[in-house]
């Protein structure tokens, strides 16, 4: 890059000119900020203002632009200069909108603005224009693992969008669960009758599609690489192994039914007349439209009882704790198998709650119309004797312990268990639980490691340092940022689709797989350009390591939430750029600070912290540093400003990519420079986390829990550094929180480090 030339632009629009002394801001940019070009403008974001900046870049060789105007989240199109490094001093949302417009506040408001100008200049000088990974390449093929309805849908959708697909199916035939059904629940209006599964047509479409290469009886025995350049070994049962290069992966490995053998109290295994839903589908396929016969003796079926939630929504800890969300639909459909064939067959569905997603309500009504009886109750046991069963249950409406005698067939609605492979965090979770005093997980883990124990089988066999499969979220379902970005897993470029991600029915799985196919395509195209995937989509910066300084402590490797970092043969961290989401957690973790981004680094933030003019201890003007997550907390502060909420003039806010990217050096720097307090605002962590980077805020709060020692070493009060959880909706709460914190800090004696 040519010589650095910094230009600072100070806007006077939106009331900035009236509220602030922009001339003195300009002087500060020039004198302290060392900007070579400094211009004030009455309305910077209008065509003329933008043209002025453009002209400076094109004709004055300006390489670094500092815009002191509105929030970096506003006017991104007007100020979208992609060919220069750029910083924004937030004078509108960050200063004039959150301060009262009165004489008494004028001085402190001006001081705030001056600091933000200093910070903006300091930041931009440490920034470089990010250049995409020069090594970016991409293979435009999608690997789909699993050939059921979800997998086939993903393959067909990707193919229709013009991408080639490698489809790997473990069994000898495509179709998965779908192929084992007699019919499916309806997907079309009027949602009244069971409908043809359409699986045969789908299989035909897949096998005749020139874009789709199908392997059956095959597994992915090894996958290495990163988005754009995955190398997958596909091994078939015959022992042959083929290597396929692909750009991204969709895992659609579906579910297994919860094993009904765990439910002897419901008669399973005691009589052939007690079946699970898969068993009933088999009977219906065999009958193929004729009357379904009693399995024990081939007798007529006069009464069928459907037991909902069998081994599900269980509170005893013995069975599945969750609802599979699809088995109610299935029971209605299966009851119709009987009713449509012979309306005189009694079909009773015993449920505690009926879950009918989407247009399932219409299907339920149709079932009622056809005369299926729905009874709210809880089945306690099924006594299977001879050719009939007695179903004992509590009628929850009539509050009656009662029974249905002489049922010819009992169908248990057992649930979906994800086929998600190895739980890569099992040991970690077990250790955390054990540390909290619960040893059950750890015992289970140890037992699973014992000689001869059945080891879970990996699905993907990723050659990642972090383990062979996608991390699991809950109850064994694969990872998903379930709140904001459900397709995203913590392994970039690998998308989970269908019931492996959460329990679901065919309609949902089809939608899910379609979405995952599009995400897979997006990952391929991002990889081609060296751009980040969500949530910093399009970001061209990526972590660079000064490897000579690395002490091989492995913190970055361990803490990266996305498993982006492997180790090379000399045990140095090996960054896979296209796996990286640019969260900066590695940068925050690195104790020797050798990891940085071109436009976001220990220095870009550190220099802002140091640029602030900290008043001396006699001025009674405390200074508080706020490090705010740019995904939630910072936008919430901007919105608070729009609502003209007022907060303290003592604070200086710096947005960070994620609290996970906060390096403790920033805290010590701030305290050493005489700040009186440091406030960190990040997303909720834990089980119902909101963090865009899943683990970032959790790691931050863990790291900060250790800051206490540093504070003690410096002789400072522990409340000088605090982490708060913030959500994007905390528009009123955050200003309040800031004011409370600043009152708390103002009540302490001034920091003894001022003036050093």
């Amino acid at each position, binding site marked *: 890059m040519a010589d650095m030339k910094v230009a600072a632009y100070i806007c006077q629009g939106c009331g900035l000119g009236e509220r602030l002394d922009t001339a003195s801001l300009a002087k500060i940019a020039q004198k302290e900020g060392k900007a070579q070009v400094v211009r004030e403008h009455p309305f910077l974001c209008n065509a003329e203002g933008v043209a002025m900046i453009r002209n400076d870049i094109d004709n004055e060789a300006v390489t670094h632009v500092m815009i002191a105007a509105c929030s970096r989240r506003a006017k991104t199109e007007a100020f979208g200069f992609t060919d220069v490094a750029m910083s924004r001093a937030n004078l509108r949302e960050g200063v004039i909108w959150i301060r009262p417009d009165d004489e008494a506040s004028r001085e402190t408001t001006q001081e705030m603005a001056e600091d933000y100008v200093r910070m903006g200049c300091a930041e931009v000088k440490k920034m470089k224009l990010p250049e995409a990974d020069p090594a970016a390449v991409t293979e435009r093929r999608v690997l789909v693992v699993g050939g059921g309805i979800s997998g086939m849908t993903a393959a067909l959708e990707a193919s229709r969008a013009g991408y080639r697909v490698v489809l790997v199916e473990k069994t000898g035939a495509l179709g998965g669960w779908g192929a084992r059904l007699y019919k499916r629940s309806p997907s079309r209006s009027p949602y009244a009758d069971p409908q043809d599964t359409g699986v045969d047509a789908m299989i035909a479409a897949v096998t005749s599609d020139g874009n789709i290469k199908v392997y059956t009886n095959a597994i992915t025995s090894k996958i290495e690489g990163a988005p754009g350049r995955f190398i997958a070994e596909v091994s078939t049962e015959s022992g042959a192994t083929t290597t396929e290069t692909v750009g991204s992966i969709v895992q659609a490995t579906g579910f297994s039914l919860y094993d009904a053998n765990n439910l002897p109290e419901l008669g399973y295994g005691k009589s052939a007349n007690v079946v699970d839903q898969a068993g009933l589908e088999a009977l219906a396929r065999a009958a193929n439209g004729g009357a379904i016969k009693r399995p024990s003796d081939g007798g007529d079926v006069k009464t069928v009882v459907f037991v909902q939630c069998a081994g599900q929504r269980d509170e005893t800890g013995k069975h599945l704790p969750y609802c599979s969300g699809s088995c109610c639909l299935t029971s209605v459909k299966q009851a119709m198998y009987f009713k449509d064939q012979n309306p005189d067959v009694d079909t009773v569905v015993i449920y505690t709650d009926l879950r009918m997603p989407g247009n399932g309500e219409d299907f339920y009504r149709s079932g*009622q119309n056809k*005369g299926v009886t729905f009874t*709210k109750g809880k089945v306690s046991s099924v006594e299977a004797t001879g050719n009939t069963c007695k179903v004992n249950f509590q*009628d929850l*409406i009539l509050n009656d312990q*009662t*029974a249905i005698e002489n049922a010819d067939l009992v169908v248990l609605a057992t649930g979906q268990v994800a086929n998600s492979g190895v739980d890569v965090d099992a040991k970690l979770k077990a250790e955390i639980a054990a540390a909290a005093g619960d040893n059950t997980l750890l015992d289970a883990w140890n037992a699973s490691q014992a000689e001869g124990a059945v080891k879970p089988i990996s699905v993907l066999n990723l050659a990642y340092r972090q383990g062979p499969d996608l991390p699991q979220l809950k109850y064994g379902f694969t990872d998903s940022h379930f709140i904001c970005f459900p397709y995203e897993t913590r392994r970039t470029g690998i998308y989970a689709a269908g019931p492996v991600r959460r329990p679901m029915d065919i309609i949902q799985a089809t939608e899910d797989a379609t979405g995952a196919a599009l995400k897979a395509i997006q990952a391929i195209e991002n990889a081609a350009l060296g751009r980040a995937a969500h949530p910093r989509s399009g970001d061209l910066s990526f972590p660079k390591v000064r490897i000579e300084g690395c002490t091989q402590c492995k913190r970055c490797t361990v803490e990266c939430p996305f498993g982006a970092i492997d180790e090379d043969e000399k045990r140095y961290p090996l960054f896979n750029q296209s796996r990286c989401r640019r969260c900066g957690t590695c940068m925050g973790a690195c104790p020797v600070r050798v990891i940085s981004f071109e436009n976001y680094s220990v220095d870009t933030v550190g220099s802002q912290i140091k640029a602030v003019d900290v008043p001396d201890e006699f001025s009674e003007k405390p200074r508080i540093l706020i490090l705010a997550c740019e995904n939630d907390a910072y936008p919430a502060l901007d919105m608070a400003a729009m609502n003209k909420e007022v907060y303290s003039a003592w604070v200086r806010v710096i947005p960070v990519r994620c609290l996970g990217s906060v390096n403790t050096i920033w805290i010590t720097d701030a305290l050493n420079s005489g700040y009186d307090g440091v406030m960190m605002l990040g997303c909720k962590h834990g089980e119902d986390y909101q963090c865009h980077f899943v683990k970032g805020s959790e790691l931050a709060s863990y790291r900060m829990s250790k800051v206490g020692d540093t504070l003690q070493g410096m002789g400072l009060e522990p409340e000088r550094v605090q982490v708060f959880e913030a959500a994007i909706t905390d528009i009123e709460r955050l200003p309040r929180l800031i004011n409370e914190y600043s009152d708390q800090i103002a009540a302490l004696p001034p920091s003894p480090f001022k003036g050093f």
Partner: protein
Amino acid sequence: MSIEKYRKNFLKEVEERVEEGQWVKMCMQCGVCAGSCPFGPHWEHTPQKIFMMIRAGKREEVLTSDSMWMCTSCYNCVVRCPRKLPITHIMHGLAYLSKREGLMPKNQPTAQFGQLFWDNLTKNGRVNELKLSLGMYFKDGFSQGIKNAMAMQSVGMGMMKAKRLNPMEILGGHGIKDKSGFSAMLKKAKELEDARRKLA
């Protein structure tokens, strides 16, 4: 008729013999009717329960319940039922079946009033208000009747002043012209209804 539990026999009977009975199977047991009925806490079974009992085959308990007799036809439940069941009509239909089967609860005031009204009406082809009120007051014996009549005295006087109540009607009152035609009409209507509802 033998009724098996949770099988459809009684539901089938209700579908055939009760007005709007074919709706009972569409109830989704949400309980909105039970929560909407002003009589909720005062009677044996809410409509929700009645419908569940029908599906559970509890014929005797349903037909002897006082619930159908307590219904005031306020239509709150009908307005609110998410499944649009004509609940009020079903309640009346059930009451009719219960009476036909001789299962209605003893000394149920609404049922008693209904009977009085019917007898009063069919006698002369029009309602004799005076006799109907007196019949109602004195249904629980003479002294209770006097008390009831005293309590309602001012209402009665008012009605008389407004010419809404004629004391002379005590002497038998006037009827319609063609009494026998009227009886024949009622008889025919009953026959038709019974045939339609298979109640004969």
